[in-house]
Structures are given as structure tokens and as C-alpha cells.
């Protein structure tokens, strides 16, 4: 049963993301031109790879593939972009965390870098496929920075809610095996 917690939370976050973006569009507090994209799923996956995965396990990567595909299916007409971006970012995080200790600042740094990297990658991929005609300058002012800020808020929330749980699940799961 405990094994199902992470995919269940992933699914819940996926659903929450799309419901919230529906209200986010007519949110009065933010400037009208800004585009806020929630990457909560990615943030959660990054934390799974930091706090749950061991060096030799790749659960976060597995979930990134599955739920990246879901994001593509639900939010866009194209399959592949989010799948690739989420998997790539989670894989990189998984690689980098071997070099660093796991604490708050490392998690913060990796999350911010991860979201920024994912956003830029999405920009260039969609640019190549000609989904949008947004120039770089508009993009980073109107979408990249607001999106980073918005996701930073959610990073704190996920960190507070899940950090302990994830480490606990990880201990439960992998201690028994060894």
C-alpha cells in the first residue's frame, strides 16, 4: 500500500494543477500579461529523487516518464515535449544529488534550477515546432520569471508537507530490502 502513495500524490498534484490553472487565468492580483505555469509535478518529482530515491534506484525517473506523458495528454495536443523535459530534469537531478548533501538549500537550488531548465527547454522545443511566436525577451520577462516565483511558493509548500514523509517512506521501503 505504501508503494502507491507516491503515484497517488503525483496524480492528485496533476489534477490540482489543471484545476488551479483554470482559476489562475482570471486571478486579479497578477498582471494580465504574465503567464504563470505550474510545475508542481516536476517539483514533487525532484523532491522524490532527492529524498526518496537511493543512488541505485530510479523510481522518480519512472514516475517522471509516466506522469510527463499524462501532462502531455491532458494539457497539450503534442505528446512528447513534457515527457522529455520532465524526464530529463529528473534524471539530471538524480545525477547531481549524488554530489551534494541533501538539505533544504540543496533542494531549493535543484528545484529552482530544475524549473528554470525545464521552462527554457519547453520554450525552445515549442519554438522549434512553431507552437508560439514569442520572442526571447518577452518570454523571460512575462513567463520565465513569474513562473519561477510562482513555483518557488509551491516548492516551500511541498517541502514542508512531504520532506519528512518522503524520507520516512524511503527508510521503510529500502531498509527492509537490504
Amino acid at each position, binding site marked *: 500500500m505504501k508503494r502507491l502513495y507516491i503515484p497517488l500524490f503525483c496524480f492528485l498534484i496533476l489534477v*490540482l494543477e489543471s*484545476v488551479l*490553472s483554470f*482559476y489562475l*487565468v482570471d486571478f486579479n492580483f497578477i498582471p494580465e500579461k504574465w*503567464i504563470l505555469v505550474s510545475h508542481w509535478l516536476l517539483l514533487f518529482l525532484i523532491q522524490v529523487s532527492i529524498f526518496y530515491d537511493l543512488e541505485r534506484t530510479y523510481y522518480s525517473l519512472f514516475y517522471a516518464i509516466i506522469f510527463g506523458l*499524462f501532462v502531455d495528454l491532458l494539457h497539450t495536443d*503534442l505528446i512528447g*515535449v513534457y515527457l*522529455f523535459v520532465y524526464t530529463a530534469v529528473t534524471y539530471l537531478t538524480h545525477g547531481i544529488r549524488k554530489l551534494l548533501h541533501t538539505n533544504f538549500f540543496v533542494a531549493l537550488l535543484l528545484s529552482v534550477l530544475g524549473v528554470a531548465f525545464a521552462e527554457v527547454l519547453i520554450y525552445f522545443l515549442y519554438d522549434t515546432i512553431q507552437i508560439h511566436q514569442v520572442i526571447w525577451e518577452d518570454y523571460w520577462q512575462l513567463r520565465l520569471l513569474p513562473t519561477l516565483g510562482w513555483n518557488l511558493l509551491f516548492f516551500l509548500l511541498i517541502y514542508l508537507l512531504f520532506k519528512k514523509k518522503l524520507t520516512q517512506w524511503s527508510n521503510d521501503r529500502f531498509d527492509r530490502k537490504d
Partner: protein
Amino acid sequence: MTFFRKKRLFILLISLMILVGLIGFTIRERSELTAVEDFIRDTTGWAQEIITVPVTFTTSVVSNVQEIKNVYRENQILKSRLSEYRKLQYQNQELSRETIELESLLDKTESLSDYTPIQASVIARSKEQWFEQITINRGTQNGVEPNMAVITGEGMIGKVQTASPFTSTVLLLNGFDRSNRISVEVNIEGEDTFPSGFILGYDEESESLLLEMNQRDTNAEEGNFVFSSGLGGIFPKGLEIGEIKEIRSDRYNLTDIAYVEPSADFEVLNHVIVVDRTMPQPQTEEEEENE
């Protein structure tokens, strides 16, 4: 060690190939989804609905409370307009009865403006805002088909892009491009024939729809309202689209381009109506080619 590196490289290359293949497969215009996509969309659709219902309830209660403040003033204004409406209603009834009588004389029962409404609620919106699409909680089981027009009380907001059994995605008007045009007419009071044209797409900068007129130097002017003409073969006649803000001649001075401000607000969407046109759709060239 070299073996592992080779293996990793191999996996990377294969996954890149699959990725490019997937993007290539899905980038073309398609209205039919695979069973897997249908299943995933419907399952998440249900979950989204479970969450949306209480959230919408709370937000509507809050906005209701805010609205109560204005109720008295609004009521006064509405009362003064009521008599006007009664006259209009009477006229309307007379005219529609006359229309039905005349139609029965001619043995013509179907008209381009007839449609069956399908009520739906918006349950989610794409988080990738470069794709202007929303999800609604009605699907093919309720009679929704791809390419049907979607409207609110204020006007047209888009068309059904894909329909799963229990949910569908709607492409909003501000995501339209040249591949999904709308045939429209400009309504000018006191004229017999209305100038016609096509909605070509959405201009981000002026936040308006681009309407290419079929003729030059028409009588259309700023403030005229634009309605669908029903001649595009997909949408019924008479759906309100927007109001003309500005008319310019195009780059080559061949036609006029009108900038149309959409009547409906694309940002505040809760309840929408899917429009099922009564008149059968003519087969498009593409479909004939496929057969």
C-alpha cells in the same frame, strides 16, 4: 565500463527517436484520439470534476455575497428596462410564428441557424497557456463531436477539438489559426445583404480576432457586430462572435482586415453550451480523400 557507456548512449538515441516520432505523430491535425488517450482524459476528468465542484461552489458563494451589494441599484435599472423587453418579446413571438408558417408553406423545416444545445461545465484549463484549450465535462456519450461550436451566453468561445466518451477539449478562439477559419457576416442595421468574410486567427498584440473581408470597401464600420454565417459548413448561423474595433486594408491593399473584439470573455468560463448543428455537415474534401 565501455559497454555501459555504449548501452546508455544507445538508450538515449532510441528514446530520442521515439520522442521525435511521437511529436511527429501528434503534431498533425487530428480529431480522433486513441483509446489510451480517451481513457486517461476521462479518468483525470472525473478527478478534476470532483475537485472543481466544491471549489466553484465556494467561489460562487463569495462572488454572490459581493454582488448582493449592487443588487438594489441593478434592480432599479432592470425594472426600467422591463417594459422595453416585453415589447421585444411580443415582436419576437410574432416573427418566429410567421417564420414557422412561411417555412411550412415552403416545406423547408431545417435552417442553418437551428441547433441543439448541450450544456457543459468547464472542469480544467491547460496549464500550458500557449495551448488555448479547456476541458469540459461532456463527451461523445452526450452527443459532443469534434468541430462543434462552443458558446456562452455572451458569444462564441471556440470549437470542440477532441471528444472522449465523457470529456472533451475545447480550442478557444484566441488559439485559432488559419487551419480553422470561421465564415462570418457583419451585421449592419438597415441593409439587405451583409458583407461576409473569414476569421483568420487571433492577433496577440491587439487582443482581437482578424477578420478578412471578402470584398473591399464594404459598408462595415467600427461598432458593427460580427456573427457566424453558417456557410463554413461546421457552425450554425447566427452565433455572436464580436464587435469590430478597427478596419484596415491588408498588406497588399487587396482586401480589408477588420479587428474584431470577441464578445465572450475567455478568462472567466464556468458554464458553456456545445452547439450541435441540426443541418447536416457537408463532407469536407479531406474526408472524401480518406474514404
